[in-house]
């Protein structure tokens, strides 16, 4: 991650936001192509035959079946041709066919991405609310006991192994105490709200169905909290540092010297500039949340991209692994774009230059 200052500089060099975003998007596209290349190479140097992985123990002995399989997935073409076929398909929104699910990878992604995004979004919202609050308090109480306590809490957050926390939390809160459901997005057999955004909580609200919303919230809370442990810690530490830095600025002293109430100073004068690095780290945190889902989704039976990625890569499901890589790279690029736009929203020096 770049220091925000560098990024701000790079934003400034742009001539107008539109042009800047355009250039970022093009760079992003190159990045995605690069990702496909790396993913392609990586998945193809892995020993193991996708056909062997996908076909049954009898089917693999039948040359006709194997040939049909290879032909269907284009595995008999030379590698470079496979790659360009893939790229060409990608341009048309064709991610290929998953060998595991036998469905278009795009279909799989459309199905598995939203739950993961939703989980990550809830986790990042929790992280931001809790992290910014804790970090601000810590900065304001610098070196006094609340700061020390928050420091211990946040460091514990970033130190706890997510997979273990998922296990332990599930053990305590779901198994022993029964407070949370730890399986799936909704109660079994309960119909999902009509898909609009794919995000269940949003869809249930759009459907004006508070009952489903409540149920969904009940299901998402524990996994989201587990996932958020790390990012709460991360954001708390960043917020503390960022707020401290802002607090050291003359303009905060000016605000105090103007006799503004403390609350106004903190909310209006301190937090806004402090948000710039926090936004950067939130983007980063979102990425780490997506990675974290690989470790927790199976424990919570969460039907998301993490499980899909894990299973696909174990099964050498090349199109699926490629698809996941591409989608994550696209998310990365989009997040970075969003962050850049947010910088402009927050900081007029960027917006207006």
């Amino acid at each position, binding site marked *: 991650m770049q220091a925000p200052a560098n990024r701000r500089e790079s934003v400034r060099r742009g001539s107008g936001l539109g042009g800047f975003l355009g250039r970022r998007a093009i760079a992003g596209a190159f990045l995605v192509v690069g990702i496909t290349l790396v993913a392609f190479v990586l998945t193809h140097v892995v020993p193991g035959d996708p056909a062997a992985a996908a076909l049954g123990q009898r089917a693999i*002995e039948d040359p006709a079946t194997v040939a049909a399989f290879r032909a269907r997935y284009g595995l008999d073409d030379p590698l470079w041709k496979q790659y360009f076929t893939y790229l060409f398909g990608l341009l048309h929104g064709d991610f290929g066919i998953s060998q595991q699910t036998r469905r278009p990878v795009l279909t799989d992604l459309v199905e598995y991405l939203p739950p993961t995004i939703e989980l990550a979004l809830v986790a990042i919202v929790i992280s931001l609310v809790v992290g910014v609050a804790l970090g601000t308090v810590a900065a304001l109480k610098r070196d006094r006991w609340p700061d020390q306590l928050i420091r211990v809490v946040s460091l514990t957050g970033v130190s706890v192994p997510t997979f273990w926390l998922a296990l332990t939390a599930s053990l305590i809160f779901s198994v022993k105490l029964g407070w949370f459901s730890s399986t799936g997005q909704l109660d079994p*057999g309960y119909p999902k709200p009509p898909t609009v955004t794919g995000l269940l909580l949003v869809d249930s609200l759009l459907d004006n169905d508070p009952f489903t919303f409540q149920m969904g919230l009940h299901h998402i809370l524990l996994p989201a909290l587990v996932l958020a442990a790390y990012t709460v810690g991360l954001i708390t530490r960043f917020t503390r540092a960022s707020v401290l830095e802002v607090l050291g600025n003359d303009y905060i002293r000016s605000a105090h010297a103007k006799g503004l109430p403390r609350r106004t100073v903190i909310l209006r004068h301190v937090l806004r500039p402090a948000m710039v690095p926090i936004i950067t780290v939130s983007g980063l945190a979102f990425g780490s949340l997506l990675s974290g889902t690989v470790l927790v989704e199976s424990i919570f039976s969460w039907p998301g991209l993490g499980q899909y990625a894990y299973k696909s890569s174990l099964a050498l499901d090349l199109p699926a692994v490629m698809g996941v890589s591409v989608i994550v790279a696209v998310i990365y690029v989009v997040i970075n774009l969003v962050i850049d736009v947010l910088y402009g929203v927050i900081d007029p020096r960027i917006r207006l230059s």
Partner: protein
Amino acid sequence: MGSKQKVGSLALVVALATVGISACNPTPKTTAGSGGTGGGAATKPLVIDTVFVLKSADPARNYEPTGNIVARALYDTLVSFKGADLKTPVPSIAQKWEQSADGLTWTFTLDPKAKFSDGTAVTSDDVVFSLNRVERVKGNPSFLADGLTVTAKGPETVEVKTAAYDPALLGKLASPSLGIVNSKLAKAAGASDAENAATADQAEAAFAKASMGSGPYVLDSFGLSTEVDLKANPNYWGATKPNYQRVVIRNVDAAQQKNNVEKGESALALDLSPDQVASVGSGVVSSGVPSQYTFYLFTNANPAVNKWTANPDFQEAVRRGIDYNGLLELAGKGSRRAAGMVPVQFAGSLPDDKAPTFDADAAKAALAKSGYDGSPIEISFPSDLTQNGVSFTDMSTRISADLNKIGIKTALKGAPVATVLELARGGKQQVGVWLWGPDFPDSSNYLAFGPGGIVGGKRVNWKAGSDPALESIMKQAATEKDEAKRADLMGQFQEGLNQGPVMGLIQPAQVFLASKDLKNLTYNLVWTVNVAELG
């Protein structure tokens, strides 16, 4: 991530314990609300937790355990089995059938009552289409229909010819993969039974949207890795209507399944280990019986791969050096020593007293005789595979410790199935620990382990011709029509196998954990449970 083909269950015989009921169920502490439905079994959905091994909603492409549960409920087959009984095929779409004198031609008469969920009658054309399609789309279950010639002899008569005598034909026809689909609907959805169906058939996705069968249930929604929802088929033609209006089969991590059943969130958990149910709370009952899987170990017979594993004395040392009782303890209550490769459910399985036994002294003696020099032997296993709660990692670690005790130095080489399977099939593993599920309900299935078989020849490098006596027994067993003689020949085959490089280890236990409300729970080797039978 059990996954993969591994299964393909069809089995013979063996009744399995019916899971009973007892005591009280803890109050369901469900979440925000229990779906607004009342308590009765008729309205509350039946929730089954399992670790999904599911790839397709298309019966012709389905060959996985979870898929079999689903396909069994959605698609009727020509013949079927009732409960756990795999000995006696019962009528389904075919109300009766006849076998020709040479055993090669079967004539099935369809039940005129049979109709699809859309209300249209099941005809012989549908049967021909369905069976041909299975073979020609070249999916995993295609081999089940290999060599069959299916012809319609009238609107309600179908003739099936086999290329060679096949004692397992009825069992194969009962496989959910050979479910009869509504050919009109299927063709409209892009299905094809033509020779080029492997590329021409485009109907797989359509099967995931709506079922096109005549079974007791129809598909409500199909989530490949989340949950499959079924609802009762309003047009079901069978005599007994299913008990539950709705069935939810959902993908749940094994560790969570117990919790869910105990809390009353789910009615049935399929993937628990005996260890996990050892401490079940009151009111919920489990049962352990041997599953259809055989865990086995092989030592590579090719000296080029490893000169020790190819050595018969070394093989003997391994065979006598494994503490099988320890393995059984690992696998838990209900598991069983695999005396030979053929599971106890099958005719021709070897009696327990014929099983090679643990004898450290004999093992050490054999090892000394082999001249083993202490060089490390690699034990390969699928590290991500857990079957019936038994993890290959644990199993292999235990075996490795046993072998260390008698003086064999080992190195454990675990890898994901997809990776390690490739090595196994290439015959490159020095020692492999694997499992085998029956592909079709006949012990001849296990001839694969003999010299030159798809396992014995390829994985173990036990080439055809290396044991002529055993190979001649194999040849006879494959063609013998008399069941008793065949069983005897299979016994002889396994005794021979027990002298060679392939060693059966155990059959793990199939454990169910069910809520007390659940009645008529039986373990069927082919489709695990028949949801339509559950009460």
